[in-house]
């Protein structure tokens, strides 16, 4: 289901007349509008949808309108034009009380510079939204504790924000947003103020959390690596207008214009490419049905020196090589168990950088239940690194 549906959203700061707005429809850009009419353009003609449980990443240079966009969604900034539907409800049609209720229950917001209340303890910060919504003391405490546990900050309840490191403060910010159990998380450069290692850690954790809580997330970032890592869908803004939207793949492989190209240019391919994008077909035989003779024949046929062994459900059991198989035949044993070895195992989303560090090849690509999906040989990795964009 569409969780967020934005159509022709526009924001012009000040009080522009209809006539001024129509100039934008005629294609006036931000610079011209400011120079000739004296209005600051925030956003114009922005349309997109976000499905339930999806992560939408908003990218663009400084001043391109990202913060304006995210604040229009919960009307911290009052839109000038267009419509915003959240779960089918027209946000622009809400009166003041309805809007407050909406903010209390539907949106959890996380800020770039954390915006924690310095006079409240960690748990009081996390409980803020619940308190505002009028929950009982016990409910506040309970839900806030749960949210803190979710971000791994159990035991810090009674500290004040300034006693915490940046990364921990932003966890509190995240917990404060999660505590109200909103359908949507709005995150405006939520990790930009953190140092690189902590930032990576937070990205991982957000992904893990996302797989558990399944929120719909609108995430703003400057950083393409972050966008590619987190985004199911990316939209790119330039001077208040939307220049491209699509999946990370689409944007990488097919940048709409020079502006997008600039973003994409700096991507480190070794971080973007994953095992699943470079893996080859994995040759395998089935235990206990197949013995050493079948193994040897298969290997000869495709010209390889070792072959994976799986069970009937394609669960990976191990790998055998040609020398061991011949030895087994010489000894007259037919059970492959004897010579089974453990290959390197990786998951489909293992990055190229990590693959590069592996010691033995071929490596088996297996999914979370252990089913064999493909194989990585050293040649694939080199080819992947040099892949033309």
């Amino acid at each position: 289901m569409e969780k967020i549906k934005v159509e022709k959203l526009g924001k012009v700061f000040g009080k522009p007349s209809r006539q001024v707005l129509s100039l934008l429809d005629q294609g006036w850009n931000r610079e011209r509008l400011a120079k000739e009419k004296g209005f600051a353009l925030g956003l114009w003609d922005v349309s997109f949808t976000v499905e339930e449980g999806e992560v939408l990443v908003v990218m663009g240079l400084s001043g391109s309108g990202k913060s304006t966009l995210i604040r229009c969604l919960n009307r911290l900034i009052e839109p000038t034009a267009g419509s915003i539907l959240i779960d089918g409800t027209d946000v622009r049609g809400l009166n003041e009380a309805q809007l407050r209720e909406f903010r209390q229950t539907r949106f959890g917001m996380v800020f770039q510079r954390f915006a924690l209340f310095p006079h409240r303890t960690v748990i009081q910060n996390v409980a803020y939204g619940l308190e505002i919504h009028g929950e009982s003391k016990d409910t506040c405490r309970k839900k806030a504790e749960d949210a803190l546990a979710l971000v791994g900050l159990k035991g810090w309840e009674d500290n004040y924000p300034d006693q915490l490191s940046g990364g921990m403060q932003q966890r509190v910010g995240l917990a404060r947003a999660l505590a109200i159990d909103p359908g949507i998380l709005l995150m405006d450069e939520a990790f930009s103020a953190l140092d690189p290692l902590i930032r990576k850690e937070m990205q991982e954790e957000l992904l893990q959390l996302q797989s558990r809580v399944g929120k719909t997330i609108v995430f703003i970032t400057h950083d393409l690596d972050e966008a590619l890592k987190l985004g199911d869908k990316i939209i790119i803004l330039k001077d208040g207008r939307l220049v491209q939207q699509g999946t990370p793949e689409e944007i990488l492989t097919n940048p709409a214009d020079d502006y997008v190209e600039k973003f994409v240019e700096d991507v480190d391919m070794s971080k973007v490419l994953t095992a699943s994008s470079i893996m080859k077909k994995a040759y395998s035989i089935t235990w206990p049905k197949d013995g050493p003779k079948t193994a040897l024949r298969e290997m000869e046929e495709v010209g390889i020196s070792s072959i994976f062994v799986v069970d009937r459900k394609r669960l990976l059991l191990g790998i055998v090589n040609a020398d061991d198989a011949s030895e087994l035949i010489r000894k007259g044993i037919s059970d492959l168990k004897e010579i089974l070895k453990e290959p390197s195992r990786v998951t489909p989303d293992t990055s190229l950088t990590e693959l590069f560090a592996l010691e033995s090849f071929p490596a088996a690509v297996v999914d979370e239940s252990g089913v064999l999906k493909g194989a990585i040989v050293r040649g694939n990795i080199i080819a992947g690194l040099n892949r033309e964009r």
Partner: protein
Amino acid sequence: MTIPKLPLGEAIEAAIDFLTENFSFITKAVSNVVENANEVLVENLEKIPPMVLILLIALLAWRLAGRRIALFSVAGLALIWNLGLWGATMATISLVIAATLVAISLGIPIGIASALFPLVNRIVLPILDLMQTMPAFVYLIPAIPFFGLGPVSAVFSTVIFAMPPAIRLTDLGIRQVPKELIEAADAFGSSRLQKLLKVQLPLARPTIMAGVNQTIMLSLSMVVIAAMIGAGGLGSEVWKAIQRFKPGMGFEAGLAVVIIAIIFDRITQKITHQGKTH
């Protein structure tokens, strides 16, 4: 040709006459309440034996502001007692307390309104400028027709004189709350009142307390000046010394004022800074 003098003073006098004639029932009522409150305060303060009160104040100072201020309080108050200025000091303290209570219970709400509503702010600011630049003595004059000579007039003019910092610093403290925290409060759907009570006031507290501190200090200085209209207390000791040209006696009373000023100041400042840590 000479330009005739504008009848500004006359107009003000006429206005005051009009107000006193037509609203005397209000001024009488206010007068009665303040007078009674002040009397009760003075009587109770005077009923407590000096020894006990000194110890109580020292204890309070110790709890709120630390050992050094506590020791200073004991020594200073004992000196005042010894100089025979105890009664006058109690009268002054009770006037200061009465005036400060009135000034902050009017000033803080006005400051809040001024921070939240631009219209109020535009009205209040010029009035504050006027109140703060007008020589303090001038406030004494209209107080007399309203409330007559005595402590009520003193409290009235002291309140006018001492209220501006409470208003200004409350206003400032609320405005100084970082915009991103206001935004966070809004993003979670806070109403205006919730935002005020849960975010703005707690964060403005240290600044508001600094305003309260200034209000107390100004009250103290004005209460001394108000001796001219019969406020009594340490001010009238100073006043007597001037009239009889007794510099020594004037110095003693002045010293007593300084001592209680320091005690008041240090205690309220400590409270202010405690607010700053969290």
